[in-house]
């Protein structure tokens, strides 16, 4: 290694200070983390609105949706912790371990979920795209052969149905409201469209769970998602973007520039007091 002992010590200390966890990502663990990360990151984004929303009613609604999503994340992290294999002697990870002690590269959420709130139109379009997927997805997942996943799905299904209704209503209101709201909403649609392809992706790990009937393949929801979006766009007077290029990477830990600052803010207290309980 180049550099003297001083530099080497610097790197060793750095590693100690970051106290990042390692995760044994079996297909099931990876699956649970991916869905949990989607929920946590999107829930965190919605929580950024608290106290700053366009109306008091909407302040409460966004907090509600954020709370649902954070709740879903906690159930799924809990399950990941339960099924993650432990190497001898290593203590189990827990929900806070996954949330606070993984680096951006270990996060497995969709790029869509980490996109910043920007304005209310962007927040609602992001929610509409996401919930138009999760609503049918969790409904189908209620018949998972894994009883824990089926239970998480049963709860999430009800919540997602409300999230979709809420987002679709705003999409239509904003799209068919004023000239300004229409322009802002179309701009949000155009900006977020390329993050929607990733919703339907699965890799070999997830395929193995599909084969065992633990999970449903996300591509099975492409048509219903597309229909929901078309109906919403038609009622809102919005144009479906032509661009076919889709951004990918979140599921494999390759993120946009937006996740790092989010995690830095979220994790800083835990990371700066190693070993403390809160």
């Amino acid at each position, binding site marked *: 290694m180049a550099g003297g002992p001083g530099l080497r010590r610097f790197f060793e200390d750095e590693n100690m200070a970051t106290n990042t966890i390692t995760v044994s990502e079996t297909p099931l663990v990876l699956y649970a983390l991916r869905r949990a990360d989607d929920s946590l990151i999107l829930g965190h984004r919605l929580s950024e609105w608290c106290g*700053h929303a366009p109306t*008091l009613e909407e302040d409460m609604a966004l907090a509600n949706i954020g709370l649902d999503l954070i709740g879903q994340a906690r159930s799924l992290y809990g399950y990941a912790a339960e099924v993650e294999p432990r190497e001898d002697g290593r203590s189990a990870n827990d929900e806070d371990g996954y949330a606070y002690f993984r680096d951006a590269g270990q996060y497995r959420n969709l790029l869509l979920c980490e996109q910043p709130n920007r304005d209310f139109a962007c927040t609602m379009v992001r929610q509409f795209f996401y919930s138009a997927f999760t609503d049918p997805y969790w409904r189908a997942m209620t018949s998972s052969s894994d009883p824990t996943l089926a239970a998480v799905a049963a709860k999430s299904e009800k919540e997602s149905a409300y999230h979709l209704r809420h987002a679709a209503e705003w999409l239509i209101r904003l799209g068919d409201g004023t000239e300004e*709201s229409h322009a802002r909403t179309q701009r949000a649609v155009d900006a977020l469209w390329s993050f929607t392809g990733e919703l339907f992706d699965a890799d070999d790990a997830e395929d193995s769970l599909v084969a065992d009937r633990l999970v449903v393949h996300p591509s099975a929801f492409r048509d219903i998602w597309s229909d929901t979006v078309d109906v919403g766009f038609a009622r809102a007077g919005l144009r479906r973007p032509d661009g076919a290029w889709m951004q990918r990477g979140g599921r494999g830990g390759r993120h946009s520039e937006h996740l790092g600052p989010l995690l830095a803010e979220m994790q800083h*207290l835990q990371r700066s007091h190693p070993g403390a309980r*809160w």
Partner: protein
Amino acid sequence: MYTQALNDRPAAAAVEDADQAERFQARIDAEDRIEANDWMPEAYRRTLVRQISQHAHSEIIGQLPEGNWITRAPSLRRKAALLAKVQDECGHGLYLYAAAETLDASREELMDQLMEGRARYSSIFNYPATTWADIGAIGWLVDGAAIMNQIPLCRCSYGPYARAMIRVCKEESFHQRQGFEIMMTLCNGTVAQKAMAQDALNRWWWPCLMMFGPPDGASQHSDQSTRWKIKRFSNDALRQKFVDATVPQAEYLGLTLPDPALAFDAATGHWTHGEIDWDEFKQVLAGNGPCNRDRIEARRAAHENGEWVRAAAAAFAAKQSQRQAA
């Protein structure tokens, strides 16, 4: 919103007759509840609108110091609990604005007063929440002080306000316990965590005592409010109740209250405290607290950034009713 047209009512005081006022006071004395459609003296209505709207503004502004920690809460359990708590405060604001609307004061008008600096809210929210321990201290002490103030308001003579308070108080006591539990966890934690808790207590204790308002005798509205049974205990009596309840809690946490003069008076059975810095209180009320400008600016920004959204919702609703009529 629905009541805006009624805001410019004629000076009703002139036409009030003495008989009506007497019958009204008799109802109050008999512990009767006054409802929205009942006759009431104009000054009673104005007093209530002022108090309820200050209270509503406090809930909304009160979202800000704690809200700034939601994205940094140190565990998922704390994050969810804090988000839910700050959401509750927004809900309190909504009930209270609704109670004010029963007195013909529109939410828009009241919010404009807030953003233009013409309305007051609790002085406490002009202090910064700079560490996680502040989230514990605010729940324990600020919500604790709010409960002391608000429990008597559940028996306020004005029905809609009293009923809103019953609902609010239930949630405030949950917040108070949650805040105490955060403090407890910090006090049983690392040396740094315990120091964080002590530091938060040092900063929040005196401003919390100021929450009860100026000492008896200096308060402008108390006498009439007491006669109308809007206010049932004096500022000093409520402050004393709070101190008596809090001293043993601080002791239980192993924290020291930042008041060397604090002493138990065996003769009265109460804790006596040192001199409150009323100059600081006056400065904060005058707009010179550490966060006054930030708070109003944040509220204004939310309002202005939301303008196009509210306009879109209104335009869409108008189009819808036009379509339905066609």
